[in-house]
């Protein structure tokens, strides 16, 4: 594994550079299903370029959290991405238990995005913040049930070990892995505020979660937020891809292509999900998140009863 560090570095940089493509892909897929032409694939890049040049307007109500929140979110998301295995290569920064840090870093991002939304004093943003806080707390249960499964499955405490260490063996009994991937897909949709949990394209503020929370950002701040959410999408896509595809079946650079292609495929999947179903009523979101938890626990039961040898 001499060349693992450069492969990781290339993949990491690819993630940073290519992440804004994902919303473009999702929108293209949705446009395809709707029979429209849709925005360009590289739309977010142009948006970001434009936002960086724009003036920044800060709410006069804000006490300062609004100003610092984008920096916190951007930084912590990038740090979290550093812990994720990229291109099926272990992260050079991995340490036992880093998976907790990974999810808690994302949790801190969310905490500060909620605070920043409340900082503006806008009722719409308060609404979005309340929903975000509620749903993400429930999603946390599913996430940690998935984690418990991964620890059971891979006997590893590092995120890299959990995701890349599974290998071909996992496919000998694929049911638990499939169940857990389904749970993780639900979590991914919830955490990234996609349909069926939230509709990123709605224009009615009353029905939004994430979009309602960022109403008051502008200029470079809005750019940082948009970029961060696309990077978060990449992180979760990459998580699922590394979980599902066993590493070490191809040579180094082919793996890179496979992993990046896999992330794009996950974006296509999200696009298909979004085109094929509507946003759920907010009352129906908690049952769905609890379902994700149940799926992960059922996966754990399957794993325990069959591969753990415990009766």
């Amino acid at each position, binding site marked *: 594994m001499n060349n693992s560090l450069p492969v990781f570095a290339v993949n990491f940089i690819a993630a940073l550079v290519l992440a804004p493509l994902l919303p473009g892909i999702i929108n293209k897929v949705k446009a395809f299903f709707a029979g429209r032409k849709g925005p360009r694939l590289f739309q977010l890049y142009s948006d970001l370029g434009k936002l960086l040049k724009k003036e920044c307007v800060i709410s006069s109500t804000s006490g300062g959290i609004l100003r610092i929140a984008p920096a916190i979110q951007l930084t912590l998301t990038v740090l979290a991405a550093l812990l994720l295995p990229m291109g099926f290569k272990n992260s050079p920064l991995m340490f036992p238990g880093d998976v907790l840090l990974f999810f808690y870093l994302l949790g801190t991002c969310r905490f500060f995005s909620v605070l920043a939304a409340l900082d503006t004093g806008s009722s719409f943003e308060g609404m979005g913040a309340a929903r975000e806080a509620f749903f993400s707390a429930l999603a946390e249960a599913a996430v940690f049930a998935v984690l418990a499964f991964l620890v059971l499955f891979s006997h590893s405490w590092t995120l890299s070990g959990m995701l890349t260490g599974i290998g071909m063996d996992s496919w000998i009994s694929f049911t638990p892995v499939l169940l857990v991937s389904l749970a993780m897909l639900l979590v991914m949709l919830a955490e990234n505020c996609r349909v069926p949990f939230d509709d990123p394209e709605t224009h009615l503020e009353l029905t939004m979660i994430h979009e309602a929370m960022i109403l008051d950002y502008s200029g470079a701040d809005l750019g940082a937020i948009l970029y961060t959410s696309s990077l978060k999408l990449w992180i979760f896509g990459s998580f699922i891809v590394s979980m599902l595809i066993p590493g070490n079946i191809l040579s180094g650079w082919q793996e890179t292509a496979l992993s990046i292609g896999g992330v794009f495929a996950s974006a296509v999947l999200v696009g298909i999900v979004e085109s094929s179903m509507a946003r759920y009523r907010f009352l129906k979101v908690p049952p769905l998140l609890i379902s994700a938890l149940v799926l992960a626990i059922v996966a754990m*039961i399957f794993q325990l009863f*069959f591969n753990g040898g415990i009766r």
Partner: protein
Amino acid sequence: MNQMNELFLGIFLCSCLMLAVSSRLLHCIRIVALQGVLLGIMPVTLAIGHGDIHWSVMIINLSLKGIILPCLLYRTMLKAGVKRELEPVIGYSLSAGVVLALILFSFFISGRLSLPAGASDLAGLAVPCSFAVVMTGLFTVIARKKALTQVIGFLVFENGITLFGAAVMREHPLIVELGILLDVLVLVFIMGISVFQISREFSHIDADRLNSLKEEAR
């Protein structure tokens, strides 16, 4: 083919979960149909490596549970004009939790049961799964108000019994199986007719309002 069976059982459990959280009757009917189809296929995958395939059971299951009964239910739903379970006795989030508890309980309890000698090697997983399906079915009957959902719960209950039989007994007691099927068929027919009648008379199919038909205490 053990993998295949394991996957089927996994889908079975997922379908129970979906049944617990879905409010649309159409979804519930689709879930029952899915379970019926799975039950139809399972004898084939179970029998590979063991010899005989009970084609008769398979075809009856597939056609009756996978196609005919769901169609009947769908027709009843259209006739009664209800689409959703609006006010369940137990909310959907709690239902998901209860189903989880039931699944855990079935795994707990079936680990302590002694299985008959002829049980197939999949029984270790199939028995708890079938328990879970049975209990989810009963739970659905308890936790939902609409007569149609209750019928669906009953069907799921029966699916669980069939699953149990299919997984545990290598020698299929065909007669028993057919007997149960017949029962359920009659049940669905009667319920279909009565739901239609109830909805025509009362313009709703909330079964719990039938309580008011009881004799007044004097």
